[in-house]
């Protein structure tokens, strides 16, 4: 199906909406969806998106890299191929099972960020053992604190440390 906005590219984003008392759907390509502000929302006030593969896993829609896409999550039975095709995880455990494969997509969407904010009362099995990334995220929060109190000397030092650590690995 072609994009209803530009008519040029394959529609990958399907938005349900309510117009004139009736439910309807529009179909957009990735670029138009992004341009029109639909590309990165979960259903807010009026819109919802079905996430098709091209939106969140563009790296897998071209030549598939050397990852085993047939691997399945033992908890829910979802294969990585299904995750890529639907843009959806099958269960909470999928995150730890497919973590390495997801990493490029996650960091494209979220950068190198880790969670801050409210903590749940319970935790699922943690994804990998993030010693190295813990160090970086600690340094980053120290950096922010230093900037907040305008201690720019310390901030510069921390920034160098972070750059050195991040430059030293290639983890996407």
């Amino acid at each position, binding site marked *: 199906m072609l994009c209803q906005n530009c008519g040029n590219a394959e529609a990958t984003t399907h938005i*349900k*909406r*309510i*117009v*004139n*008392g*009736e*439910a309807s759907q529009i179909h957009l390509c990735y670029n138009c969806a992004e341009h*029109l*502000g*639909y590309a*990165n*929302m*979960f*259903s*807010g*006030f*009026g*819109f*919802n998106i079905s*996430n098709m593969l091209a939106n*969140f896993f563009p790296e897998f829609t071209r030549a598939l890299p050397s990852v085993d896409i047939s691997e399945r999550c033992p*908890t*829910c*039975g*979802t294969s990585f191929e299904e995750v890529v095709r*639907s*843009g*959806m*995880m*099958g*269960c*909470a455990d*999928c*995150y*730890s099972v497919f973590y390495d494969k*997801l990493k490029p*997509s*996650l960091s494209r*969407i*979220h*950068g190198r*960020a*880790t*969670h*801050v*904010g*409210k*903590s*749940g*009362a*319970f*935790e*699922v099995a*943690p*994804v990998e053992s*993030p010693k190295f*990334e813990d160090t970086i995220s600690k340094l980053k929060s120290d950096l922010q604190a230093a900037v907040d109190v305008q201690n720019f000397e310390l901030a510069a030092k921390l920034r160098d440390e972070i750059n050195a650590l991040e430059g030293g690995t290639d983890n996407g």
Partner: protein
Amino acid sequence: MAKWYQLQGAENDVVISTKVAIARNVKGYNFTVRLTDDEKYEIADKIDEILDGKLPGKFVSTPMVEVGRDLQISLAERNLVSPEFVSFSEGRTLVTTEDESLSIMVCEEDHLKIQSLLPGLELEKAYELADTLDTILDEDLQFSFDKKLGYLTQCPTNIGTAMRASVTLQLPALSMRGQIPRLANTVAKLGLILSGAYGEADNPIGSLFQLSNQVTLGISEQAAIENLKSISLSIVEQERAQRIELMNSLKFQDVLWRSYGTLKNARVISFGEFMESMAVVKVGVAAGEIAIKNERLNELIFTMQPATLNVEYGQSLDRQVRDAKRAEKIREVFE
């Protein structure tokens, strides 16, 4: 009982409403795509049990299969559910307070979407309401959470806080002056999205826009809300300044009084025409030239929509009959 959108809110000359939505998934269940309808109803039952008596204010739980089509669409028109939520009914339940300010969509995209809706700019209060409900439910339901990735959601774009806060803004003056693309670009650099609330994304009816946070991982709920609030307030100021400017133009004054005449006198009016005229009239209200309370106009955004009118009259009205009923209701406000 009055619904939330019938009440007065802060900055309601520009800000129509505030919504905070938090996505959660119950430990021990697959995500929604992998659940049977029975499992989905099981989750809804658990929520009912927990809410029974634990919070002030009564929650009503309604399986969507028991709701008629007009009411389903009306729920979406009033922002209580997403259009996606009413695209099919099986397995889906809506839990809501009587005034509809606090609600849970059960088994939309995630197991729970805890939502609070308030009139005007009320981000802190809306977050507090949703947060309190989340904490109570988490004690028993045990939501899936990972230290590093935060709350785990079906779609990987929403992990982290899994919170989407949004503010609906009516920006007739900024729209008329062609300022929206510039504004959308600016807020995008600040991690927010500005998009049309009804109709086309870049040219929505009634100049109604939604401003929401885009980032969910690496930013706390409080920081996201603070960011959204300060940018909202800055847009409110810009809109107010542009409204004052507009009033200096004779051409605009003509449009204003014609729009006023339409709302005051029309015998048949579509929702689209109502919204366009009402957006213009807002500028006259801001200037003190038209004496109508903003909350009365804002309420009409919700109550004048097609399916919501059908629900009020208890039947699917013919379009022309509905347009006549709408005109009648609007004239009452403009008397």
